[in-house]
Every structure is written in structure tokens, then in C-alpha cells.
């Protein structure tokens, strides 16, 4: 009985734990190598600048900023502070970030800051912000780069994805792709 169970367990171990994932890796790497390797983005010199799916930290005024990340978008790990809604540390962090954001973005009314921009994403690696969170940064970015705000706004529109199949999820802007597009304007 024990021997029989051991044999069955090993057979299933080989099928599920080895053959299946390795075969899937093989097929995925041949058919969809870019996605299967992590959707990495390389610059003109072939140097990897990040992954399309993984957020990066931007603090320079000439770049659009992403969401709050307690792990500083370090994708060797993932996570957040897991602040409960009633945790005073959450309220404190948000108040501090509102003040900092308003100071760096004169002309933006506090009520216009959408919640996604100053909250920590679940993964700490969210690559997206809402279109509204991008819109309120246009003036700052345009000024820092000496660009026409209309041109920057157009670039935001170009980099805005709608809902999937028109129904699922939320409209969003990929911050890394938008900033790459900004750099290419020069």
C-alpha cells in the first residue's frame, strides 16, 4: 500500500512538477518569447530599461510620476505596508504626500487629486495611473521640459489604454511607456 502510493506520487510528481512546467516553458519561449521572458523593454543600444508591466519610481519633475510604492518599485520582491483603513500611519502618509504633490504642482486643486495617485498599490509595482492622475501632471511636465502642454496632453492620450474589450477593468496610462515616449520627443 505504501509502496503503491509512493510510486503513484512519484509518477504524478514527474508529470505535474516537471514535464508540464518544462513543456509549457518550451512552447511559450518558442511561440511568445517576449511575453514569456517578462515583456522587457530595451533602449536603442539594446540595454534593458525595464519591463512594460512593472512600475518604476520617478521623482524628476520632467517625468510623470506613478503610484506610491513602499518598496520603491523594487521588483526583486513585492508588497506594501498593508495599512488598515483605520491605521493613523496611512492618514499621515497621505497628508504628507498631498502637501508634497501640491507644492510640486502649483495650480492643481487638492480636490482634483485622484485617490489612485497617492495610495500604495497592492503589488507595490503597479505600472499604471488613471488618466486623471496623468492629466493633473501635464502642466508640471510641460514646464520642466519647455514643451507645449497640448503636445504633452496629446502624448498622454496616445498612451492611454481603454477598458479591455470595452468592458473589463479601468482606463489607464502606462507611466513607463509614457515617459519613454516623452524622452523620444527630443
Amino acid at each position: 500500500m505504501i509502496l503503491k502510493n509512493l510510486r503513484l506520487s512519484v509518477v504524478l510528481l514527474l508529470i505535474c512538477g516537471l514535464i508540464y512546467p518544462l513543456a509549457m516553458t518550451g512552447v511559450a519561449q518558442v511561440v511568445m518569447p517576449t511575453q514569456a521572458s517578462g515583456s522587457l523593454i530595451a533602449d536603442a543600444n539594446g540595454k534593458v530599461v525595464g519591463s512594460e508591466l512593472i512600475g518604476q519610481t520617478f521623482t524628476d519633475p520632467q517625468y510623470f510620476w506613478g503610484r506610491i510604492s513602499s518598496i520603491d518599485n523594487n521588483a526583486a520582491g513585492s508588497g506594501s505596508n498593508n495599512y488598515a483603513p483605520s491605521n493613523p500611519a496611512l492618514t499621515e502618509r497621505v497628508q504628507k504626500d498631498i502637501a508634497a504633490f501640491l507644492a510640486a504642482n502649483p495650480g492643481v486643486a487638492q480636490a482634483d487629486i485622484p485617490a489612485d495617485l497617492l495610495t500604495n498599490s497592492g503589488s507595490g509595482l503597479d505600472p499604471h495611473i488613471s488618466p486623471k492622475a496623468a492629466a493633473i501632471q501635464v502642466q508640471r511636465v510641460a514646464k520642466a521640459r519647455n514643451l507645449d502642454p497640448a503636445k504633452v496632453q496629446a502624448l498622454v492620450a496616445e498612451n492611454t489604454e481603454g477598458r479591455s474589450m470595452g468592458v473589463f477593468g479601468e482606463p489607464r496610462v502606462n507611466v513607463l511607456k509614457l515617459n519613454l515616449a516623452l524622452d523620444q520627443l527630443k
Partner: protein
Amino acid sequence: MDFIQISVVLVVLLLLAIPTGRYLARAFSLENTRLDRAFGGVEKVIYKWSGIRIADMTWKQYATAVLVSNITMVAIAYLLLRLQGMLPGNPSGVAAMDPLLSFNTAVSFLTNTNLQHYSGESGLSYLSQMMVIIYLMFTTPATGIAVVMAFMRGLTGQRSIGNYYVDLVRAHTRVLLPLAVVVTLLLVAQGVPQTMEPTATATTLSGAEQQIARGPVASLVSIKHLGTNGGGFFGVNSAHPFENPTPLTNVLEILSMFLIPASLPFAFGFMTKSRKQGWIIFGAMSLMFLVFLGIAYGSEINGNPALERAGLSQAVGSMEGKEVRFGIAQSALFTAVTTAATTGTVNNMHDTLTPLGGLVPLGEMMLNCVFGGDGVGTVNILMYAILAVFIAGLMVGRTPEFLGRKIEGKEMKLIAIAILAHPLIILAPTAIALASEMGTAGISNPGFHGISQVLYEFTSSAANNGSGFEGLGDNTPFWNISTGLVMLFGRYVSIIAMLAVAGSLLAKTPVPETMGTLRTDNGVFLVILIATVVIVGALTFLPVLALGPVAEWLTIR
């Protein structure tokens, strides 16, 4: 738009669940079917390699086989975790896991819980992700499916309760492996990595160095959902853009984890030759689910009043701990589904849910029969159905019968044990943890939410769910041992008790249906069933819910 996108997902699920239910009933039939021609060849090879002879089992043989095979699997898993530092398939150089954490992890994946006290990026080698995690992610839902098939055979009075090894193998070959292959490839197409290359290094636009962990992710994420497992490749599970990159993958993952639990009631309907019976069970679970979903969505879209007061507009809802691509609708739906199907995968951080939003996953895991995990959830609701028959029968003075078999003292004792075990292994350890330094040391959020964190950890363990209020500092000897034991009791007490019930019912002579029989396939019974579940659950758990989420809600509303 939120209403539409949630409705579309649920309608698609229903359309998939009915044919899948019919397929499951046929795939596990004791008679010969055409499916034997398609899968029989592969299965014969597996039987031959394993030295298995196919013969009907008694319930005791079946239960023994479940236990011995599960002990073998957990031993293999434990050894691999302890040795991963020396084994190949470890390009990022991960060290061996310590003994207590290995115990917790092996038990967690064996019991279909997938509670994770480690973080996948740094705690597991690629080989362990495949040969421990992916392996158990197949075998444990397969065990659950086997058990529910045996249980339903007993209830419907078939030739015997079947053969565990045949059921186990068929769950792999006829259900989980084919589905996993399809879902894996769809996930990769959307951007989920599937590679053996080590962590990538990038130089960001700001000039900093960024490490990007990756690996054979898609092959794990597919079976994580199909098998209602829930343990993520990465620490943050399906909130990670590599596990769940787009709203489409989110929908696919929701459908994957809900498919088998939602189709089993229909399979039951086909097996009893009364489709209405299947619809009544499905209807009872669906109504409870829709109420929970409504509370979760309503609470999250209202936002966090504390942040509103701090000056951050909550017009788009409570976004702390959520991802922009999912927003409130896809997050609330995912949360309601993952704790209904007791998968435990998360696409947003449950610790950061608004108080009443957090009450939803807790409530679903406490009832433990709002669909439930692959196999075991259906066993639980059928157990409540028998209890409902018994209570209603006594109230109106009719002999309690379910599907033509008398419910007597022996069955009721076994069911009472299974139903009482669940609150006992949640509330007793929660009380001990809250009263001791070892337990309270892990709490990361102040106030009433700290109680919720501890309660959630044990509820999730007992329901074999595996999600967490992840702020809890849970990789300590206290948490590793206590939740390990709770997971074992949560899984095996009810499995063995219900196999015994199946064996006992099968041995009885069927009684013909008369005017005096309480019908179990109409609306009245649906109401009685829901009332039974809700009353038992409410009596047991409302006091502790008042101390945690409800009290927190009162402080910030």
C-alpha cells in the same frame, strides 16, 4: 459599467458551469463511457507504472487511501523544501527553507490552503516552485474532486463509492491538466512570464538599477486558480503585474477558480438524475454569494472615510492596496470569488480593505460552503443540506430523508462533528493568540483591526483558503505550528467524516418517496437550506465579527 462588467463575468461562468457539470458527471462515471477511449490509454500507463489495480473500495479503504497518499505527498514536498539549496533548478541561489516554515508550507499546499508564510521571490527555487508548489497544486484539488465524487456516489446510491486512485488520476488527466495547458498559454499571451531565466536587471529611466524577479510563472498561476489553490508565485499573488497583467487575465483567473466549484452542483444534479436538485444547491450558493459580492463592492466604492477626511478625494473608491488596471469592480469581484471558492489568491490586499469590505472574505470563509474549494465546498453544502433536512423534518414531524435514504443518528453525529470542528479550530486558536504575547506580537495594525488580522489568519487556515491580512508578521514558530495544525484539522476532519456518511448511506435500503417525504428540489428547501447555513454561521461567528471589522467600521465611518 461596473455592473455590466461584473454581470458579464457571472453570466459567462454560468454558461460554462452547466456543460462542465455534465462533463464531470460523465468523466467520473463508474460505467464505461466514450471518454475512456480518449483518456484511457494515458491512464492505463499511469496505473501500470504505479502498480494500481482497479477495484471498488469500501469507504474505509477509500479514506485510508486518501490519507496514505496525502502523507506520501507531504513527505516528498517537505524533503524537497529542506533540500532546495542543494538541488538543481535554482538559478537565483535560494537557500534551504527552515524546518518549521517547511512544515507550514508543505501542509499548507497539501491541504489546498496555500497560506504563505514565505515570499516566493526569495523563499523558493524554481525547482521548488515546480516540484513542490505546482505538483501539490494538481494533486490536492484532485484529492478534493475525488472525495466529492465518492460522497456524491454515496448520496445517489451508486454501485459503490468508487476507487480513490482512479478518481485521483482521472482528475488529473480528464480535468486539471488539459485545462491548465490552455489557461497557461492564454496567460502567457497576455504577458505572464514563463521562463527558466533568473531575475532580470534593468537600468531605469531615472538611472537606478531595478531587479525584476520572474520564472515559470504562468504554469503555476493557471493551476493556482483551476485547483482553487491560491498560493502565488510572488509574494503579492495575483496583484503582481506578472501574475495578473491585464483585466482580461483577471477575468480568466476568476473564471478558472470558479469553474469547478460552480459546476459540481450541476454534476450532482446529473448524478441524481434530477437537474432541479442541482439547481437548488447552485441557487442557494449563488444567492449567498451575490449578497456578499454586493456588500464588498458597495463598501469599497464608497471609499475610506478616514482618507476623505484627510483630504484625499474618494470619488473612485478605496484604492489603497488595489491596482489601477482592476479598479474597484474587478477587485471586489475577485475578492468575493477567491474567498467563496476558498482559493485564497488575491488581486488586492485584503488587509487594506474597508472594514465592511474585509468582513466579506471573513464571512464567506466562516460559512465555508458558498461554492467552496474544488470538491470540498460541494461536500460542505451537501452536509448542510442533510442538516437542513434533519432540522426541517423534525420540525414538521416527518422522517428525515435525503434522496430516498433515511438520515439517522449515526449520520447526524458525523455531520455535527464536521460542522462544530470548523468554528472550534477558528475561535479557540484566535482566543489563545489574542491572549498571548506570541500571538499579538505579529499584529501590524493598531486598534480593532488587529483582532481582525488574527481572526482572518485562523479563519483562512480552517477554511483552507490561504489568503491573509498580510500585514500580520506570521513567519514565527507560533504561527507556523498553530496554522499548520488548523489547516490539517480543517481539511481532514470533514473529509473523513463525510466519507463515513457516504459509506453509511450507501449501505441503507432506499425508501420509496411518499406524500410524507420532505422534497429537497423546490424553492421551500432552498430557503430552508440558506436559513440553516446562515443561522448556524451567524450564531457562531457574529460575536467575534463585532469585535473586529464591525468595531473598526464604527470608529472610522
